[in-house]
């Protein structure tokens, strides 16, 4: 087998790996200590990179659907885009979705992804009732909250380290239309946006975009978007009244090549953020299709390439609720002072979540993008300190640079997770570049 260069969404790091395409569930021959499953590579860093990568996207069949309860069973390589394409027209939507639909069901479970409804509906894993997993021994097992529950809960958020998810069963959510009633509320600073989040707790969806370059009394200037699925009655006077479940996988506007590194300097970001702020301030409320509401970036395929060849880093952390205000302020100040604006800065209030190894916990989370430039790593280390000082933690699926200690501090149940991994993978077949870097395997 020949090796291939490969990287995930951030374009960094790039590794040379042997890629095994899993076409037939149950066939796999990984190398000890260096094998990891990979979905659509929408994690940003090295979570799904290893010497041997098992590409699971080829197993992508729907296996059963109950149109009474909405419970869907499918193979792990099925993408969210495919689920939407076939189920939105039938009146069903994903229970939880991240900001891109180009991820697999396996990836959604392994990262235990969250969406704009975390405060009400938790993570994707919360909706999973059963999984079929291929273990390191080659054995295929079923697990659920009642059967091999240790494996089940360690696999949710377990970043592929317990085995390869082959199948999963989870509930879809009934919708009357494919439209969203959206409100966009401008907030002049951090206090206002946090107040808006509090006031929006009853909304199913909420998220805010922050202008990271705003300083002083405007620190944390942002727009909060909140929304609900529109019912038939909400769209009866719109042009969509006769096509309430309209869904179309339209062709995307691609970014065909890498921009020169540095094309995204702080001026561009300023313009972009300013423009976005303006646009949405004017837009206010209205009915919008679920695609632009949930996946604004998917409309531009390969938008990650605007960061140029060197790629970029995502940085996402969550702070406990009690420290969120002070912590966020400190982080935003540090960013504004540096003038190292992030193209995208997304703020969200998480609800409560009990989990072993999943990222979310009650409090505010901030996700930032930084183009890779000299001095960035040093700057991020400074942010790490602020986050740790406030008792925060980091998201595996976005990380490609943290050191083991910084990472581990945020996850009190890590030891328990590693015990279960050891039980189901005693020889340590599964590990990623990330799990090695973080000294988990």
């Amino acid at each position: 087998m020949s090796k291939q260069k490969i990287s995930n969404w951030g374009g960094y790091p790039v590794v040379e790996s042997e890629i095994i395409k899993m076409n037939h569930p149950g066939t796999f021959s990984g190398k000890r200590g260096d094998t990891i499953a990979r979905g659509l590579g929408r994690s940003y860093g090295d979570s799904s990179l290893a010497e041997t990568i098992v590409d699971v996207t080829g197993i992508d069949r729907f296996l059963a659907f109950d149109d009474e309860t909405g419970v869907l069973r499918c193979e792990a390589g099925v993408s969210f885009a495919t689920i939407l394409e076939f189920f939105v027209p039938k009146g069903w939507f994903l229970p939880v979705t991240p900001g891109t639909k180009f991820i697999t069901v396996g990836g959604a479970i392994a990262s235990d992804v969250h969406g704009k409804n975390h405060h009400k509906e938790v993570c994707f894993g919360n909706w999973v009732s059963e999984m079929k997993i291929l273990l390191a021994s080659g054995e295929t097992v079923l697990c659920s909250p009642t059967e091999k529950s240790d494996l089940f809960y360690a696999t949710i958020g377990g970043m592929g380290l317990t085995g390869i998810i082959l199948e999963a069963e989870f509930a879809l959510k009934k919708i009357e239309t494919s439209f969203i009633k959206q409100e966009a509320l401008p907030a002049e600073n951090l206090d206002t946006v946090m107040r808006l989040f509090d006031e929006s707790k009853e909304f199913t969806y909420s998220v805010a975009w922050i202008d990271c370059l705003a300083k002083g009394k405007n620190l944390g200037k942002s727009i909060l978007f909140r929304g609900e699925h529109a019912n038939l009655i909400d769209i009866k006077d719109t042009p969509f009244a006769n096509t309430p479940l309209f869904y179309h996988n339209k062709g995307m506007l691609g970014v065909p090549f890498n921009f020169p590194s540095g094309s995204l300097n702080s001026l561009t970001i300023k313009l972009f953020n300013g423009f976005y702020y303006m646009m949405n301030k004017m837009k206010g409320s209205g009915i919008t299709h679920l695609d632009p509401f949930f996946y604004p970036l998917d409309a531009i395929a390969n938008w990650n390439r605007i960061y140029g060849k060197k790629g970029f880093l995502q940085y996402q952390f969550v702070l406990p609720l009690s420290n969120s205000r002070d912590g966020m302020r400190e982080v935003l100040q540090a960013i504004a002072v540096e003038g190292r604006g992030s193209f995208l800065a997304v703020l969200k209030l998480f609800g409560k979540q009990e989990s072993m190894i999943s990222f979310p916990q009650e409090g505010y989370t901030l996700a930032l993008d930084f183009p890779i430039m000299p001095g960035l790593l040093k700057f991020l280390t400074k942010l790490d300190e602020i986050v740790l000082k406030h008792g925060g933690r980091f998201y595996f699926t976005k990380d490609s640079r943290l050191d083991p200690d910084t990472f581990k501090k945020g996850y009190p149940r890590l030891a328990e997770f590693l015990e279960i991994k050891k039980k189901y993978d005693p020889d340590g077949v599964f590990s990623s570049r990330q799990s090695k870097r973080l000294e988990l395997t």
Partner: protein
Amino acid sequence: MKNCLIIGAGSDVAKALAVEFAKEGFNLQLAGRNVEDIGKTAADLQIRYGIKVETLYLDVLKFDTHPDFFNNLNPKPEVVVAAAGLLGDQKVTERDQSATLRVINTNFTGIVSLLNEFANYFENQGSGSIIGISSVAGDRGRMKNYIYGAAKAGFTAYLSGLRQRLSRKGVEVLSVQPGFINTKMLQGVETPKPLTAEPEQVAKMIYNGFRSKKHVIYTPGYWRVIMFIVRSIPERIFVKLDL
């Protein structure tokens, strides 16, 4: 609603072709050995396209079961696709009689035994379509895979004769001559990337060939040219080549 039967439905090309037929509203009968896996494909197509899909056990090598397999089919399909095939290991087939027979019987004798049933039925009825997936390997025997190639050559000749017999009776026969396809058949075999097609691409070509009532298609079309050249090489030169 028309029915399409696929023989060897576990094949990667067959799976992709099933999607093409399903999209056009055909009901499907998926036949093969690995009924558990085929059952999953059936569930998927049912959920996606809202068509009826039946899973049937069939082993091409079990000749004596073929008449019953045909008789039990209900309804009888309007279209039959023969996708089952076995490449085998050339080096092994050179020395092991049972391996040789397995390759020949899977690609040729077994398929012929099955297709004869449908040919007669379609002839009587005055309608129907047969799609046979052969291979460019049958266009000229090469030392790398001539047992497989010989079986496919036999199958290609069979389809050609069948077409001549049935085309005057309102029955269509399509011969498909694929080049390299990125399927499990070629797992572990190194093939030139630019000449290796994806099963989905080949499936679309087969469906279009069927729709436009073609007789013989190469998938992709450039294989017609490649094989014309390969066939034109004089034998005294050919014997020295490592092609």
